[in-house]
């Protein structure tokens, strides 16, 4: 069977000592930075990207993937121990996880989270391996018009999945696409909206933008709020959940994995929705829903599984279609490009050991997280007791070194400061930066594909509706947008995010 042979190749690549070491280091430092409160996976990856520069492309991607899982797991740890979720997807974990921690069950909550993540990671790895190849074949049939339709669908989904007002989410996406047009025009070579600055003629660097709005701005926002970190004082307790706990969690974990894996594949950051969906589902299915929010172990197991499965299947649109579905995957594009790998359907055929090695390393990374994190819980707790007045200057310094090292260019550091201010302003205006990042990520690709499609059709916009696949995708996007704007659905959507 192809799948077995491919996974065999992958594991052979990933199990080389150097790649194992890279995967291990990635998981460890990813968790270390990801544990810091207010530092989510995006800022973590942007900060740690320079660590991978001296490594060969396969090793670098394995390490980056490790950093990503580490950061995800670190975020859950922070959510459980101090109730500060590093990013949207660990908000749900904080609900019941932190309650468990307050009751002296922090260890069990962390252990359950780790086991759920591992299970979800294992299933998600198989899902990627199984549908990666067929989807890649499908992707080769896509022309520019179809890509354009798919990306528009992704952006529409992102609007629906964003928190807060639909109008504001659309505004932020358009802003992102507008920012993406800054720089040299793809075809004519003219400078666009560069304000006459040389450093802008290559466009705005994605890592700079992401680090500004998710790293620097986050520090500013945290300083605004007085320090209210309640690091769990109760003992951590034992780490491994009891047999009865595990039996109770098995269902939620499996359902969460399924939800996460399915939503993560969607091109518009569906993974964000997965933990919320899983939490709501488990609450509905529970014998006694009142336990939720008061330390129900199912409320940790389900969403954590969903979160991790979604985080991993989000690689599918990137690896098969070359379309990053969220900001983290966009950073992966950046990192891959630095190493001369252009994400897309060609990667699998041209560079099979890289493709399958990375997939195999995903599973190894999840296993390592389970092995290294449980014994290190004590260390993370001690790290979290460091007061923010010391932590934030350190975070700042890491951000600066990370950004400078990407291009060895001080101008990048200045732009990061600028976007940090922009990010702070956006927070104050109640505008979510996440959709902007997605708009920015897809913007350049969207423009490229649209222009290619129009050149092929000699300027006729009809090309987007005459081709059946493209028309179907655009229709789906339109329907989703209309549904999202219906008053009844709007209210339901607000309720879903209120949980």
């Amino acid at each position, binding site marked *: 069977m192809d799948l077995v042979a491919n996974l065999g190749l992958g594991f052979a690549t990933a199990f080389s000592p150097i790649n194992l070491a890279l995967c291990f280091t990635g998981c460890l430092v990813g968790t270390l930075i990801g544990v810091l409160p207010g530092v989510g996976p995006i800022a973590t990856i942007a900060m740690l990207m320079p660590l991978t520069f001296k490594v060969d492309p396969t090793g670098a991607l394995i390490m980056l993937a490790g950093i990503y899982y580490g950061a995800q797991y670190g975020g859950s740890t922070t959510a459980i121990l101090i109730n500060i979720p590093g990013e949207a997807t660990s908000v749900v974990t904080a609900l019941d996880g932190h309650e468990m921690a307050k009751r002296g069950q922090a260890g069990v909550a962390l252990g359950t989270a780790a086991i759920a993540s591992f299970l979800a990671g294992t299933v998600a790895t198989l899902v990627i391996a199984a549908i990666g190849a067929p989807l890649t074949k499908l992707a080769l049939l896509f022309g520019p018009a179809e890509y354009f339709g798919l990306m528009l669908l992704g952006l529409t989904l992102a609007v629906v999945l964003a928190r807060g007002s639909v109008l504001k989410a659309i505004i932020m996406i358009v802003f992102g696409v507008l920012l993406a047009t800054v720089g040299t025009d793809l075809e004519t070579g003219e400078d666009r909206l560069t304000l006459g600055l040389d450093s802008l003629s290559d466009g705005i660097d994605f890592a700079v933008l992401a680090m500004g709005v998710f790293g620097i701005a986050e520090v*500013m926002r945290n300083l605004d709020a007085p320090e209210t970190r309640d690091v769990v004082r109760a003992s951590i307790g034992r780490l491994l959940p009891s047999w009865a706990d595990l039996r109770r969690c098995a269902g939620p974990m499996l359902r969460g994995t399924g939800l996460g894996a399915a939503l993560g594949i969607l091109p518009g950051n569906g993974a964000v929705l997965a933990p919320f969906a899983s939490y709501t589902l488990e609450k509905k299915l529970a014998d006694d829903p009142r336990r939720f929010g008061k330390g129900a172990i199912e409320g940790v197991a389900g969403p954590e599984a969903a979160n991790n499965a979604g985080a991993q299947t989000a690689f599918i649109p990137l690896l098969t279609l070359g379309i990053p579905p969220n900001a983290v995957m966009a950073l992966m594009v950046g990192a891959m490009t630095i190493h001369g790998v252009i994400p897309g359907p060609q990667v699998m055929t041209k560079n099979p050991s890289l493709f399958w090695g990375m997939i195999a390393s995903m599973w190894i990374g999840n296993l390592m997280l389970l092995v290294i994190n449980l014994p290190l819980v004590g260390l993370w707790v001690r790290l979290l007791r460091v007061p923010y007045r010391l932590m*934030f*200057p350190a975070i700042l*310094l890491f951000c*600066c070194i990370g950004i400078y090292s990407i291009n060895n260019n001080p101008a990048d550091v200045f732009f990061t400061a600028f976007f940090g201010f922009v990010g702070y302003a956006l927070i104050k205006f109640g505008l979510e930066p996440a959709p902007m990042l997605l708009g920015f990520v897809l913007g350049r690709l969207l423009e490229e594909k649209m222009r290619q499609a129009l050149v092929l059709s000699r*300027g006729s916009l009809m090309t987007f509706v005459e081709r059946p696949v493209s028309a179907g995708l655009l229709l789906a996007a339109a329907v989703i947008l209309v549904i999202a704007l219906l008053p009844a659905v709007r209210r339901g959507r607000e309720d879903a995010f209120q949980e």
Partner: protein
Amino acid sequence: MTEASAPPAEPTPPWLRQDTAAGLVVIAVAAFALWQGAALTAGSLGAIGAGMLPRALAILFGGLGLVLLVTAMTTDGERLQRWSLRGPIMILAAVITFGLSVRPVGLAVAGPLTVIVGAAASPETRWSETLIFSVVMTTFCVLLFKFALGLAIPLAPWLVGY
């Protein structure tokens, strides 16, 4: 977050609402983009020029901003949050300090400077502690980024020549 979304007892005056300000800023940014892109040629659908997309997006952006502004003026909403000055200004100053100093004096000096300037952002900072911490953090970063990873970041050009 939950308290903020509860309806305020008294309606917020329209010009103090968060969305009013957001709408105005969006329109201003759109106008700026239109002005900056004014010289670019739009071309036609068959041969799209450099200016078509920036212009179309700016118009769309500004239009949406206008919708936001009008909605905010006509329906009650959240009040604009208070902006703090010290935190953001010192954080920005720290990052800019790093950018200005890393090339000429290297990480050995830029590191402590960044930590110290940044620490001024918080009223809780204890200076003696911060001074020691800045040296410790810089040493750690030098060992990690410069020696363990071999990044090209300057260390102390005035002292060791790189």
